[in-house]
């Protein structure tokens, strides 16, 4: 039968059918309660986005007294620039970042995990070192560097570093995963005369779909949520990303548009959520061939 694959998808020991009904109910109840707890703040935000503005902070219940979408309209088109523009900007930057990260970091991770070369441990330690530096510190020197390159007020400072594997987190993540893949596969391929590149392309990457999908998801979401980078490098309002746009709703010295903020915040969750849903299939399906390719 397709034993390997179905059990990979439906996973280890207990099948659903074998579990007793009370246990199943308990598990589901716990999960549902946990879900509510996790979701409560989000539900509050969605509710706040559809209720009349002066009710947002005064009422404690989740159910609005009346549903009213003006916050969405105002949030979307109330600024000089429609929010759609911000969505587009964020999308472009995020997709470029994902591509850069997945490609560049997997290359570096493969080198660290599988290839031997002089100085490997040294460079690995350096790579980890870059994880530890808080970005506020290298901010000004980097800003000056990009300024001299003429890249300020473009998306280049935000995107190019990704193609140069600047997110050590993903390199580290992929190294850990690559090291979990049996070396025998590499050795067999090498005996067949495969070059390092072919092993990377034909063996490593296909078997690492879960971690690549993970990297893609995280990469997308973190970029989507990042505001400090765009704050510093994007001056023109029509290049603003979503997070920057959201922050213009709130100003401590004058009036803030909380309804608009919550409406747009809710809206910004949508693409990320779909990105996540799309890629998480890879997390399930990808594993079906682990260890099977012999």
């Amino acid at each position, binding site marked *: 039968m397709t034993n390997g694959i179905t059990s990979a998808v439906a996973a280890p020991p207990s099948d659903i059918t074998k579990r007793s009904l009370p246990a199943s109910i308990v598990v589901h109840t716990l999960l549902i309660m946990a879900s509510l707890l996790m979701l409560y703040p989000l539900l509050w935000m969605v509710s706040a986005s559809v209720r009349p503005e002066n009710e947002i902070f005064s009422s404690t219940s989740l159910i609005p007294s009346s549903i009213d979408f003006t916050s969405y309209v105002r949030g979307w088109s109330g600024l000089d620039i429609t929010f759609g523009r911000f969505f587009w900007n964020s999308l*472009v930057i995020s997709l*470029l970042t994902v591509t850069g990260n997945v490609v560049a970091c997997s290359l570096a991770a493969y080198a660290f995990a599988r290839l031997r070369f002089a100085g490997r441990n040294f460079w690995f330690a350096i790579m980890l070192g870059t994880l530890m530096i808080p970005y506020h510190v290298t*901010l000004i020197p980097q800003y000056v560097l990009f*300024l001299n390159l003429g890249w*300020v007020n473009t998306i280049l400072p935000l995107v190019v570093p990704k193609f140069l594997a600047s997110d050590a987190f993903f390199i580290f993540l992929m190294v850990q995963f690559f090291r979990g893949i049996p070396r025998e596969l590499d050795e067999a391929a090498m005996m067949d005369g495969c070059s390092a590149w072919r092993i990377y392309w034909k063996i490593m990457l*296909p078997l690492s779909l879960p971690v690549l999908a993970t990297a893609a998801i995280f990469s997308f979401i973190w970029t989507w949520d990042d505001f400090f980078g765009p704050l510093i490098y994007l001056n023109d309002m029509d290049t603003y990303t979503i997070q920057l746009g959201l922050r213009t709703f709130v100003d401590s010295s004058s009036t803030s548009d*909380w309804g608009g903020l919550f409406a747009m915040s809710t809206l910004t969750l949508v693409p990320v959520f779909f990105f996540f849903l799309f890629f998480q299939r890879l997390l399930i399906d990808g594993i079906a061939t682990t260890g099977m390719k012999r």
Partner: protein
Amino acid sequence: MTFRVSRRNFVAGGATLLSLSALGPGAFAADARLRLLWWGSQPRADRTNKVSDLYKAKNSGTSITGEFLGWSDYWPRLATQVAGRNAPDVIQMDYRYIVEYARRGALAPLESYMPSKLNLDDFDPAQIEGGKVDGHLYGVSLGANSAATVVNTVALQEAGVEMPTNKTTWEELGKMGAEITKAGKRKGFFGFADGSGAEPLFENYVRQRGKALYTADSKIAFGADDASEWFDMWAKFREAQACVPPDVQALYKDTIDTAPLTLGKAAIDYAHSNQFVGFQAVVKDKLTLNNYPLIKADSKGGHYRKPSMFFSVSAQSKALEQAVDYVNFFVKDPEAAKVLDVERGIPESKAMRDVVAGMLDDVGKIPLNYVANLGDLAGPLPPPPPSGAGEGQTVLRQLAEQVAFGQVTPADAGKQLVDEITRLLARG
């Protein structure tokens, strides 16, 4: 499989990247291009952009790019741009920071443009002084305001308490506050917000005692006993439940929407007069403004009219003349004044005040009248704060919180305040 997708993405991504980089900031090339940076929210941005349009109509060939951010994002953006020699031409400036930027040479001195290019004739001379640091003019005031208490008239009526007047003393206010709390007409409601950590309030207090926060030569101008009595007064208010308890006050994050008044916890709060419109927008009840309480029935000089914010010009600007011209237009053109009205404060130019006065609605008239009618409650403008004064604000807030939460006694807090501030000023 996945790799073909990746490769496709890669190629597509690369192409997009190249084309996007080609788009770049073409605007850098244009002649007479001004960059403007201010803080505020969309309503303010709408007004500012309209004024820019008016200016462009009168000065064809100029292109103006306006950028704006919220207050807390504004300062890191500005700092980074100044550090990177990429500062905007016209910068909105705040009293707290103008000294820091001016003394470090980031702003252009403007007095040489007066009076021909920059005509501030009908400004109150004291308000022009407010933008001067070390004898040079670095900022043109965009509006005057003064500190004030914001009073919830409806809540006071409910509790059967009389409205405070311009002669109300702290003692009287304390009694009023306790009454409001006792009346208990609203859940978790108290008389007034805890202002022990608010610098404008404290400054007003020491000024009424004939002192000040800082001297003109950057030394501390009040003593430990002033501070201790201040903290002690508030400790007594807390005991009498005239003001909100410390954990409610600690929710306040210097924004209108976290103020105890807005959160529905207090009937009286403290603000700058030009924030009145903002407060009224988020509070259902009718509000009004009043001055800070007096220490004694005949105290005076606590208040002062201060510039709410300035426009400064960057010392690095490549379009100095144009920038100054724009600033002049902003504060002296009647059409501009109509667009801006009192959103940034009461216009400094008398001519503009006259233009605007006729247009204000009831809510807008309140801050105007308040500032105009201060009389001898207002004294002279203090000298520009020394370097380190901004930290002094934080120290005051922190010590006040420590007293409120019972970690430090008022007497000790007073001493510590003086010590810390003296140390800060010495550090420079």
